C-alpha cells in the first residue's frame, strides 16, 4: 500500500518539478541544488529554500518601501534588486531572476511607473516560486516519511 502511495507521490513530485522547469519557474541551477543534497545533509534543499525565502521576503519588503517613497532612491533600489537577483540565481528561480532584471532596467531608467510594474512582477514571481517550492517540499517530506516507515 505504501509502495503505491510512494510511487504516486514520486510521480507527483516529478511532474511538479518538470512543470516548474517547463514554465521557467526554475532552471538548471535547481538541479545543481538537488544534486548537492546527500545523506550527510538530507534536508539541504529545504534549508536552502528556507534561507532563500527569508532573504527574498526581506528584500521585497525593502523594495516596496523604497518604491513607495516620494523620491525614489533608485540606487538603493538597484542594490536591493541586485541582491535579490543573486539570491534568485542561487536556487534557480529563473522567472524571478528575470523579473529582477526588468526592475533593474526600469530603475536605471529612473522610471518610477515602470519600476512599480516590474516590482509587481517580482512579487508575483516570488510567490509563484515560493508556493510551488512549498508544495514540492511537502511532497518530499511525505515521501521520506513513507519511505522511512517501510
Amino acid at each position, binding site marked *: 500500500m505504501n509502495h503505491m502511495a510512494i510511487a504516486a507521490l514520486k510521480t507527483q513530485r516529478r511532474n511538479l518539478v518538470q512543470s516548474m522547469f517547463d514554465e521557467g519557474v526554475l532552471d538548471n541551477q535547481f538541479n545543481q541544488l538537488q544534486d548537492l543534497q546527500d545523506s550527510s*545533509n538530507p534536508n539541504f534543499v529545504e534549508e536552502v529554500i528556507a534561507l532563500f525565502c527569508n532573504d527574498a521576503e526581506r528584500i521585497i519588503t525593502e523594495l516596496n518601501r523604497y518604491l513607495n517613497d516620494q523620491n525614489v532612491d533608485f540606487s538603493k533600489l538597484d542594490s536591493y534588486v541586485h*541582491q535579490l*537577483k543573486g539570491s534568485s540565481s542561487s536556487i534557480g528561480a529563473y522567472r524571478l531572476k528575470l523579473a529582477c532584471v526588468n526592475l533593474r532596467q526600469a530603475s536605471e531608467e529612473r522610471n518610477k511607473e515602470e519600476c512599480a510594474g516590474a516590482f509587481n512582477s517580482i512579487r508575483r514571481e516570488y510567490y509563484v516560486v515560493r508556493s510551488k517550492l512549498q508544495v514540492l517540499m511537502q511532497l518530499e517530506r511525505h515521501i521520506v516519511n513513507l519511505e522511512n516507515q517501510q
Partner: protein
Amino acid sequence: MVVETGFSSPRTDAFPAGLRVLVVDDDPTWLKILEKMLKKCFYEVTTCCLAREALNLLRQRKDSYDIVISDVNMPDMDGFKLLEHVGLEMDLPVISQFSMANVVCSAFFYSSNSIEPLSHKLRLCNVAVMSVDGETRRVMKGVQHGACDYLLKPIRMKELRNIWQHVFRKKIHEVRDIESMEGIESIHMARSGSELFDDGSFLGGEDTTSGRKRKDADNKRDDKDLGDPSSTKKARVVWTVDLHQKFVKAVNQIGYDKVGPKKILDLMNVPWLTRENVASHLQKYRLYLSRLQKEGDVKNSFMGMKHSDTPPKDSTAGSGLRNSINLTQDNVSNGSFSFPVNHTLAPSVDLKGHEGDRKGITSGPMTELKGPFSIDISGPRKAKSSKISFDHSLGSVDSVVNFASFGPTDTAQYSWNEIPEIQFKQEYEPLQLENGFSQLPLPGLQHHMLPEYLQPAVSVSPGPSITEKEATSSGFEVKSMYDEYRSNHAKHSSQTEAVGESHSLNNQVFKSISTTTSSMKSQDTIPNHLTVSEFSPKNLYEGVGAEDLQLCWPQGDCYATNFGLQGLDCTEHNNPAIVSETPFHLYDHPFDPTEYYASDQGLFA
C-alpha cells in the same frame, strides 16, 4: 556570522582535499550553497557573511586559509576592497564571485605587475572574482584588485573543484622563486625560455619571467621547501608592504620632486634591491599618486562618459566596433573605488552597435577614461597594436601612464582593453564559463595567456538580451583578440624596457603574459612584476592542442569556444583532446566531473 566548519590546520597530504577555503558572501543562500559545494570537494570550509569579519579572520590567523572566495557585491565592504586588503596583507589566493555574469568569465589573473604599488601585493593572491552581473567593469575591477580568477554565479561545482590549482600554482612559484637573485641574466633566460615553450609542463613554464626576490627571503625560506627550486633564475622583486613603506619613506625624505631611483635605492638600504627595481616601482608609484590626485576629478568627469574618441593608432580599430567605455555613475561613485585605478580600469563598457559577428572585439577606442592609464586597443585583426589612450584629466596620458618614459605602444595594454567589450548594462543570462581553471599556464603560452582570459570577458554576448542566447559570436571575438594579442605580443617582445614597464603596469590585469617577453629586455621591469605563473585564467589553455572554452548556459546548453591556438570555433562540443592532454583536468566540460576530478587527485596521489 562566522561559521567555522573546519579547523585551521595545515593542508593534508591529500591535497587538494583539505584545502582551507574561506568563503565570503553576504547572501545567506549562496553562502550555504557554496559551503556545501566546497565540502563536496573535500575542502575545509569556513563561511563568513561579512567582509570585515573575513578580514579579521584572515588577520588573526594568517596561515589558516589557502584560498578565499569572495563575493564582490557585499554591503559592508566592497569585495574589491577585501581583495585589496587580502592582497596587501596576505599572500592568499582570492576568488571573487560575480553572479549572473553574462560575461565570459575568464580568469583574471592578477598580474604581478600591478599598477599601483599596493596592488603588487595582490600579485600573490589568487583571486577569482565572481560577479553577479558580469559587468565588465566589475570584472575588471576584480582584475585590478588582484583577482586571480573570477567566477560567475551561479557557480558550478566544476569551477570550485578547480580552485585548488590557484593555490598549487602559487606554491610552485614560491618554490621556484627561491631565489635566485640573478637579475638580468634571468630576464634573458626567461625571454628566450618563453619563446621556446610550447608545451612545457605547466610547472616548468610558469614563472619564466622572473624569479622573485623576497624581501623577507629568510623568513620565507621555510615556505619554500616545497620542492626543488626549478631552474628559474629570475629575480623579481616582491614589493611587500614593508618594502614599499621603506620606499615611500625614502621618497618622502628625498622629496618627491627630486626623487630618483638611485637616491631612493641608497636611502632604502636594501641590499638585494637594484636600481632597476626601484625605478620601475617608482614609475608605478607615480602613476598611483597622480591617479589619487585626480580621483575627485575623475568622479565628476566620469559621469556619463561615453566616448570613443581616442583614436586608436591603428585605423582598423574602427572596424565597426564601437566600444565606448561608459563610466557610469555607479562606477565612480561607488564606494568601492578606493583604488584610483578602479576608475580607469573598470570602465563600464557600453557596447554599441555591435552585432553578432564582430570580427574583432576590440575595442573601440576607449577614451575619456580618466586615469593615467593607457590602453591599447588593438583592432580586430591587426598585427599591430593600436593604442588607445585614455584622456586623463591627469595630464597627458602618455606622460603618465604610459609609463612615461616608455614608448607608447604597449601590447599588453590593449589586450587588456579588449576586456571591456562586455556590455555591462545589459542583463544577460548567465554565461557560464565552465572552464574552471582551464589549464595551468604553460610556459609557452605565457604570452598567450592574456588573450585567453581576456577573451571571455570580451566575448560577452554581443547584444543585450535577457534571453538565453548568448555569445554566439564570442568565439570569433575571442579568436581575434587572441590573435591580435599574440601578434602584438610577439611583436613587442623585442621591445624595450619601456614596453616592459608598461606591460607591467598593465599587468595588473594580465599578469605577466606578454610582459614576460618584453620585460626581458627591460632592465628593471621584470623584477617587479610579471609572473606568468600566476596565471590561471579560466580559459587558459595549455597551449598544446586546442582548448575549448565552454560557455554553458544554466540550462546546460553549451557553446564551446576554442580559444586555442588554432583559432576559435564556436561549436558546441567538448574537445576530448583537451581532456586527454591536460594533466589536470582543469578544463571544464560536460564530462563527468568526477572523472577529471579524480584525475586531478591522481596527480597528487
